[in-house]
C-alpha cells in the first residue's frame, strides 16, 4: 500500500486473484478495514473545521478564564470615590467579606493576624466554640451589619496628596445587630457571663445625618492608594481625626522608612530611640506598609511632641530571643545593660522572672508573676483567691513569654510593627490564663 498524503486514501499496490479466476479489466478491491473512509476532500475539510473549532474553543476558554479571574475581590477600586461607594454598597449588603477587601491590604492583614491569634486563645480558654473560625467563609459572625442610603459628598472630598483622599459621609444609616449565641461562644461561657439568660439583643442604628447635624461636620473616611488601587484605611481615618482634633493639617512631606538588618537590630534601635526620645528614628523604623500612616503623619506627630525629654536611660547592651509569630518575628527581651545617672543596671531573664542587678552596689531585685498577685491581694483585701490566681496567671503569661517587639520584613529590611507587637503582648498575657480563671474574672466583673 502507498501512503497518499494528508487527506488521501490508502491505495492497493497490486491486484489479488484467487485460483484460476480470470483477471478482470477492473481491479478487484477488498473492502477496506477499520472506519469507513471519507473522500479526500471531505476529510481534509473536516480536519480544517476541527482545527478551527479547537482554536476558537481554546481561545474562548482562555478569554473566559482571564475574565473570571480578573474580577478579583482584592484589586482595590480605580478612584477614591469608587472605593467609598464600594464600601457603602458592601455595608448596605452586610457583606463582611466585601468590607474586609475594602480595607487597605496591609492593615487588613495585620488585623486579621491578630484576630486569628486572639481567636485561638479564646478557644483554648473555652470562651469561643472550637469549630468557630473568624476568617472562614462558613463561619457565623457575631454581629449582623447593614447599611442604608449611605451617601458620600464627592464634591467635598479632600485630596491630601497623590495617595490619600479624605471622603465625607453625609447621610444614611448603619445598623449593627449583636448576635450572642452558641455559634461563636461556648455554652459554658455564655452561662457564666449571663446566668439569668441571654440579654435581649436589640439592633443599634447609627443615623449618619443626625451625627453630622450634632457634630457639625460630615463623617471623615480616609482612602489610600496601594499598588494602583484605592482602599478605605482605618489607620489613616484614625490619624485624620487625631490631626483634626489638634487642628493640624496633614504634613506635605513624609518620614522615610529606615529598616534594619535583623529583627533584633530593629527592636534594639527602636528601644534605644524611644528611651532617648528620638521619635523620628522610632517612626522611621516602623513598617512602611502597615504603618504608612505613621510615616505620612510623622512630621505632625513630631511637631505635636515639641521637644520631648529623653528618659536619661541609655542602652549599653541589649539582647533578644527570637520567636516566630503570625506575620513576623517577635524579638523577646532576654537581657540588657542600662545606664542611668552613673548607675549601671543589668536586666536579665531567669526562670520566668526578670532580675535587675545594680552593678555598683550588687543589689538585685527580682520581678516574678506572683509578685503582682501578692501586691494586688495586699491592695484589695476582699480579692477572692480565684481572682488572685487569675491575676498571677495573667502576669505569668507576660513574664514567661517575655515582652517583645514584633518585626516584619519588607524588601529585605526589618521594621517594627507596633500593631503586631501590641497583639503579641495581649496574646502573651492571655496565654497564661486557664479556663477556670475566666469564670473567676467573669464573676468578679458581675456576671453572677
Amino acid at each position: 500500500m502507498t501512503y497518499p498524503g494528508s487527506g488521501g486514501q490508502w491505495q492497493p499496490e497490486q491486484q489479488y486473484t484467487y485460483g484460476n479466476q480470470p483477471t478482470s479489466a477492473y481491479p478487484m478491491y477488498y473492502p477496506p478495514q477499520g472506519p469507513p473512509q471519507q473522500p479526500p476532500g471531505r476529510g481534509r475539510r473536516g480536519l480544517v473545521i476541527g482545527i478551527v473549532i479547537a482554536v476558537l474553543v481554546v481561545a474562548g476558554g482562555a478569554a473566559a478564564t482571564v475574565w473570571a479571574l480578573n474580577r478579583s475581590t482584592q484589586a482595590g477600586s480605580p478612584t477614591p470615590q469608587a472605593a467609598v461607594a464600594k464600601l457603602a454598597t458592601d455595608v448596605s449588603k452586610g457583606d463582611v467579606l466585601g468590607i474586609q477587601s475594602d480595607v487597605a491590604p496591609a492593615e487588613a492583614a495585620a488585623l486579621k493576624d491578630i484576630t486569628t491569634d486572639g481567636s485561638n486563645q479564646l478557644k483554648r480558654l473555652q470562651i469561643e466554640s472550637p469549630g468557630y473560625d473568624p476568617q472562614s467563609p462558613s463561619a457565623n459572625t457575631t454581629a449582623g451589619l447593614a447599611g442604608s442610603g449611605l451617601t458620600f459628598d464627592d464634591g467635598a472630598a479632600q485630596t491630601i496628596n497623590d495617595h490619600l483622599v479624605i471622603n465625607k459621609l453625609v447621610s444614611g444609616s448603619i445598623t449593627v445587630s449583636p448576635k450572642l449565641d452558641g455559634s461563636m461562644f461556648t455554652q459554658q461561657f455564655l452561662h457564666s457571663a449571663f446566668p439569668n439568660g441571654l440579654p435581649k439583643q436589640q439592633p443599634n442604628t447609627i443615623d449618619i445625618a443626625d451625627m453630622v447635624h450634632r457634630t457639625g461636620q460630615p463623617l471623615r473616611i480616609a482612602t489610600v492608594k496601594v499598588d494602583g488601587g484605592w482602599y478605605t484605611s482605618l489607620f489613616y481615618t484614625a490619624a485624620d481625626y487625631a490631626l483634626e482634633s489638634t487642628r493640624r493639617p496633614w504634613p506635605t512631606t513624609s518620614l522615610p522608612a529606615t529598616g534594619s538588618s535583623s529583627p533584633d537590630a530593629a527592636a534594639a534601635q527602636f528601644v534605644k530611640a524611644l528611651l532617648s526620645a528620638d521619635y523620628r528614628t522610632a517612626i522611621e523604623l516602623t513598617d512602611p506598609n502597615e504603618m504608612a500612616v505613621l510615616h505620612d503623619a510623622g512630621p505632625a506627630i513630631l511637631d505635636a511632641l515639641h521637644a520631648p525629654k529623653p528618659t536619661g536611660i541609655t542602652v549599653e547592651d541589649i539582647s533578644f530571643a527570637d520567636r516566630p509569630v503570625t506575620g513576623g518575628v517577635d524579638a523577646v527581651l532576654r537581657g540588657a545593660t542600662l545606664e542611668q545617672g552613673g548607675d549601671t543596671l543589668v536586666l536579665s531573664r531567669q526562670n520566668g522572672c526578670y532580675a535587675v542587678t545594680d552593678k555598683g552596689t550588687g543589689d538585685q531585685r527580682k520581678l516574678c508573676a506572683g509578685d503582682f498577685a501578692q501586691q494586688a491581694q495586699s491592695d484589695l483585701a476582699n480579692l477572692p483567691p480565684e481572682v488572685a490566681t487569675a491575676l498571677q496567671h495573667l502576669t505569668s503569661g507576660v513574664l514567661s513569654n517575655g515582652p517583645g517587639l514584633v518585626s516584619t520584613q519588607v524588601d529585605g529590611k526589618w521594621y517594627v510593627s507596633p500593631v503586631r507587637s501590641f497583639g503579641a503582648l495581649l496574646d502573651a498575657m492571655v496565654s497564661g490564663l486557664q479556663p477556670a480563671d475566666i469564670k473567676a474574672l467573669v464573676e468578679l466583673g458581675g456576671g453572677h
Partner: protein
Amino acid sequence: MRLTARGGPWLAFAGLAIVLVGTFLPWLRSGDALRDSYQSVDVLRMQPTPPGGPVGVLLYAWLAVIPLCSISVALYALRARRTAALVACLVGVLGLVTSALALVNAGGPADAIGFAATGPIVTVCGAATALIGGIVVFGGRQSGVKP
C-alpha cells in the same frame, strides 16, 4: 449500546456546559452579597491562613475548570476522542469533589457568611453528567463500539 455510545459525547458536552454555568452561579454568601466560584476561591485564597493540603490544591485546581472544559471540546474536535473524554472525566471528578465540599459546609440562611447551595448543586449535576458522558465515550471505544 451503539446509540448510548454515540450519545456519550453529547452527554459529556452537556455536562461540561452545565459545570461552566454552575461555576458562575452563587457559591458564597456574605450578607446579601453573592459570589460565584471564582470570586469565592479568590476570597478563600486571600485569607491570612489559606486552606492547605487537599483543599488548598483544590482551590488552585479550580482555576483550571474553564481551560479544561475548552481543552476537552477542542480535543474532541481534533478527533482525539478518548483524551477528550478523559479530560471531561477529570472535570467531572473535580466538580463533584469541590461541590460536595461546599455543600457539606453550606451554612444556614441565618448565617451572615456561608456557602450558597445554587452553584454547587448545578455544578454537581453537570459534573456527574460530564463524568458519565466521558465514561461512556471511553468505555465505548474500549469495547470496540464506535461513538
